[in-house]
């Protein structure tokens, strides 16, 4: 009898934590999202009126930022995938005894704060940085063009900041591929490119899916990169939510936006995972 109870007892602390710090806030958030300000009350004082039109209003008012969030997150995810795949592949197959050291290098940026790293990008891309001048003298960008406060900088910052989240699952997936299956593919008349398309890529799909999710989801809700590296023209949904909460103190709109963002991500992710068909992968 005791043995049967033990797993449930072990679950208790985790369940309790999730209940208090996830479930209750979510319910509270949902509750807030349909409230309206109390007439004559202080800022931030709302009452429940079940006004579901909050969602529509919030969406219409911020649809630009909404689209931008998903656009930037998508671009950053694709860029991160393109950078991380060869990197993870090289570590897994060519890393040899330096594998672990290289993995430490991948997560090394985590030893510094997220904010500091993003501010560092501002320096790198800024007027005093070493990127702008060479690009200008080479004629890649016009003399008047700046790199900071631009969509380019925001996407670069996101790509950089989320790169380890892409690299690690990819590495875990690629590292599990038996190199002999790649040899077998070559043995069975597939050249290097075909082997990649037909064997390596399908076998690393769990990593691709996990990596893109771990990059895309936080990137879509991110506001730090847009705040530090962007301009008013590059504001993302995260920025709107942040300002609604902390500056304008418009809790219902912020809550409605949060839910819309969450739901949209959930739908996109479900479609994506279905399409990628990873359920049947080992």
């Amino acid at each position, binding site marked *: 009898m005791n043995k049967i109870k033990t797993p449930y007892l072990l679950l208790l602390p985790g369940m309790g934590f999730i209940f208090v710090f996830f479930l209750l806030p979510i319910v509270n958030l949902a509750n807030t999202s349909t409230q309206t300000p109390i007439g004559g009350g202080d800022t931030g004082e709302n009452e429940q009126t079940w006004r579901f039109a909050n969602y529509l209003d919030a969406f219409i008012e911020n649809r630009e930022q909404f689209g931008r969030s998903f656009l930037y997150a998508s671009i950053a995810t694709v860029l991160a995938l393109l950078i991380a795949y060869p990197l993870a592949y090289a570590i897994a197959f060519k890393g040899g005894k330096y594998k672990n050291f290289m993995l430490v290098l991948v997560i090394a940026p985590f030893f510094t704060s997220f904010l500091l790293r993003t501010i560092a990008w501002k320096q790198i891309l800024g007027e005093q940085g070493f990127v702008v001048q060479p690009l200008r003298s080479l004629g890649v960008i016009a003399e008047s063009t700046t790199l900071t406060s631009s969509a380019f900088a925001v996407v670069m910052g996101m790509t950089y900041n989320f790169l380890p989240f892409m690299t690690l699952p990819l590495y875990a997936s690629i590292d599990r591929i*038996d190199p*002999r*299956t790649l*040899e*077998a*593919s*070559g*043995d*069975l*008349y*597939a*050249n290097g490119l*075909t082997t990649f398309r*037909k*064997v390596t890529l*399908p*076998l690393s*799909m769990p990593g691709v899916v996990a990596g893109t999710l771990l990059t895309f989801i936080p990137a879509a809700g991110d506001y730090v990169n847009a705040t530090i590296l962007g301009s008013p023209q590059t504001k993302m949904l995260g920025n709107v939510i942040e300002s609604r909460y902390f500056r304008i103190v418009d809790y219902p709109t912020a809550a409605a936006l949060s839910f819309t963002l969450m739901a949209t991500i959930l739908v996109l992710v479900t479609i994506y995972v279905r399409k990628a068909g990873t359920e049947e*992968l*080992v």
Partner: protein
Amino acid sequence: MSDVASSARGDLKLSQITKSYGDFIAVDDLSLSIPEGSFFALLGPSGCGKTTTLRMIAGLEEPSNGSISLGTTDITHTKPYQRPINTVFQNYALFPHLTIFENIAFGLRRRGIKEVDEAVNKALNLVELPHLAQRKPTQLSGGQQQRIALARAIVNRPALLLLDEPLGALDLKLRRQMQIELKWIQKEVGITFVHVTHDQEEAMTMADTIAVMNEGRIEQMGSPADLYDNPETAFVANFLGQSNLIKGTISGSDGDSQIVDLFGQKISLQKSRSHGVDNSIYAGIRPEKFRISRLETATSGNLLTGGKVEDVSYIGVSTQYQVLMPWGQELMVFEQNDDGVAPFSVGESVNISWEPIFTFGLRGDEDAEAGTEVNPDEDLAEE
């Protein structure tokens, strides 16, 4: 794929192949020719270079020196996918993301063949697993995976099929069954099979020709019977079955035979089976060729007297004796339990005799222990 290499057919020829990794020489100046349609085995202990040789034939490794040709086509530097050669890998290396059907169709599809159904089903029938077409490799047992790996290679009708320890992961009973089946399939399809193994019994059961490899070189090549009855080196004598090697000197000649003096006792050795370079020689006799007797009535054959039974093991089909000879060497004797004679007991004085035709002679300067330390059932994960 219309290049010359992919359509090459004929005998496989390795000429002075060397493969070195830094200072380590895995394969050392190896030359051999494998006739089209034969079942050829590369046999040797771990690290003897047999897998490296196989990988060079497959194109997975490039020789440091020498050349490989198939028929009249030089394939030394062609890529694996350009060679009409397929491999059954040691761990099968099936594609885990594809069904069994697609695993087998893989090679056909890569060569642009659209209609694969008939060929794939034929291959599945050949290995007697047509009902597994839609499964994934992980849902199959080891023995089934092994057959699928074979079907995946054979379906391409290669000029050459390479088998890298294909039965190593199977249990003994299944291994014996697959040995017979593989041999049957080879006859059926008529493709040249090159089989790498460290299991001498497996090599002898299946192959027409065996090359025994040791330290990157071929020690001896021949039919299983040739290698067993007439080994040319101590390594071959010990690696293929067991041998009694007795030190002696050639003291004379008698027609087709040499007279060999073994610690004062004279025996006869056929010249065609004598591989010594001077008068110093090891006389070799397989344990089951010995006859053990109480009387000195030995017949026309070779006779050694003065033995004493040191140990007796009854193992059903035969009884194994350790017989201590006057010069201090213990000889192994396997007696069939077919004569109704009560076994000899420890301490009994006995003589040993055998037919002279069963004696083979090895160079006297060889290491009589070469090839004995290797336990063929150890280290399956080789090289």
